[in-house]
């Protein structure tokens, strides 16, 4: 067997050892609960619409699993479900969250994402990145010239989601099991 294949297998084994897995109920019901809360909370107050709980859950699973393919799949699934419940064409949030899931998982395998400050910074950055991606998809891909983003509002959204994400990460940490 060639030497480089052995090296690749060795690298994969080490990374897989750092991955964290979740039980099936957690992997199914946490995203579902996030989607449900996302559509119910704005009924209580429209201000809750600034939250993006599906994004927070996508980031959490992608960072924890540290597997880009799993991160991409998680982001795509959650994004598509979010699209299906909104007025946007199916694929807008799906594409954005696929990229976010991939990038978060790739970063998760390279840096220490268990640190709270790192997680806060990642959440802030990825929330802004998602706003940029959605803007690009709507304006450039779909050609909706009338689509506008209020960038100050998007900045506020990033701050609020970061603040909300940290306690969610802490509580969800208890549900994961080390491989």
């Amino acid at each position, binding site marked *: 067997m060639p030497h480089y294949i052995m090296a*690749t297998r060795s690298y994969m084994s080490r990374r897989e050892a750092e991955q964290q897995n979740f039980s099936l109920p957690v992997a199914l019901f946490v995203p*579902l609960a996030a*989607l*449900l809360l*996302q*559509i*119910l*909370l*704005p*009924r209580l107050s*429209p201000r809750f*619409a*600034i939250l*993006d709980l599906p994004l927070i859950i996508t980031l959490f699973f992608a960072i924890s699993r540290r597997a*880009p*393919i799993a991160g*991409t*799949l998680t982001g*795509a699934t959650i994004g*598509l*479900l*979010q699209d*299906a*419940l*909104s*007025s*946007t*064409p*199916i*694929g*807008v949030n*799906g*594409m954005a969250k*696929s*990229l976010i899931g*991939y990038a978060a998982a*790739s970063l998760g395998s390279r840096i220490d994402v268990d640190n709270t400050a790192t997680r806060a910074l990642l959440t802030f950055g990825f929330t802004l990145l998602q706003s940029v991606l*959605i803007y690009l*998809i709507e304006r450039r*891909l*779909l*050609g*909706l010239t*009338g*689509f*506008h*983003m*209020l960038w100050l*509002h998007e900045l506020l959204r990033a701050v609020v989601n970061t603040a909300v994400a940290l306690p969610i990460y802490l509580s969800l940490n208890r549900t994961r099991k080390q491989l």
Partner: protein
Amino acid sequence: MDFLLRFRNALFLIAVLLAQALALAVQVRTPRDPAKQASGSVRLIRMWTTGVIAPFERGAHAIGWGLRHGWSNYIDLRHVRQQNADLQQQITRMRLQEAAISEDALEGRRLQVLLAFKEKYVASTIAAQVIGSSGSDLSHVLTIDKGSRSGIKVDEAVITPDGIVGKVRDVFPDTAEVLEINDQTSGAGVVLANTRIRAILRGTAAGRAQIGNLTADSRIKPGEPVVTSGGDQVYPRGLPVGTVESIAPDPDRQPYTAIVVRPAVDLNRVEEVLVITGMQPELPADAQQDLAAAQAQHAADISAERLPGLHDNDPQAANGANAAPPAAAPGTVPVLAIPHPTPSLHTDRYTIGATPPASQLTPGAPVVPQTPPAGAEQQPAHKSRPSKDSAHPDATQ
């Protein structure tokens, strides 16, 4: 093979993105027929997602409803009977007012018939409760608890008593999604009520309803009501949309102005809506009955005005304004008595009956006020109005 293994993560991401980009292209390229649902796969995804989420939405809505309305619906029921009676009276009054308004609109209808104008009236509605939203401030969609099994179809107008909410975007067996008028993809034909300017109302990224296809017009002022025009074939004509909130030049689309409209309905707190499921060229049966009653009342009023002495022999009518109108029999529309002028306290030459008829007057002779005969004040003004020559002091000299 080695290439695939080495870059499998990136390749997988590209494949997923490509698939979604293709799906987006199909959705954008496929023109949507208003009479049909969305394309098959998209509709399936939406239907499955809604099917999974809707039971939880219903449960959460039921719990929230129970908590919010449990006290008022089952415990705090004091004064409900009195309130019910008051509301019934209010309904009766409003129906009479509506009938009067309908009678006023009768002339307009005649003109519309002359012009072969096809008017449509709301024939049937379905009441539904809002059980969910899109959960995003970039998308304004409501989920209601009625669907195709209840007879709801795509592109039907959704309203409340305050005004329009939006239109049905997707219909599933037990639920439907309503696109609100402040969504970025929404549009409605409207008319500015005072200036009668037709325009198109669209949603903005900030979740506001805005008219953007009008150039600057000094006649348009904040506070002007906006109603539906009926030209979009979705919303019936004349339904309240909102009021003009602000007018400013549109920086993106010169020389057009951005007219922000404050919706008549609080779109963030809609709980119950009516879906307009049927329109008809004739008025509904109950409205026709009210209109007939109004026409009967109007005819009676005209007859009473043309026959001012109709109640002169009536002892009750002789008491003038103090006489109470007779109680109307149940099921009939009461006809009000003609009001008579109250007797004057100090008689002068302008008092009804104080001036002798013109045949008894001598040209150039001064006018001597006469004592009015008893009951003269009860006569209608136009019946014994003095002539201009005799009443004017200069005319007698």
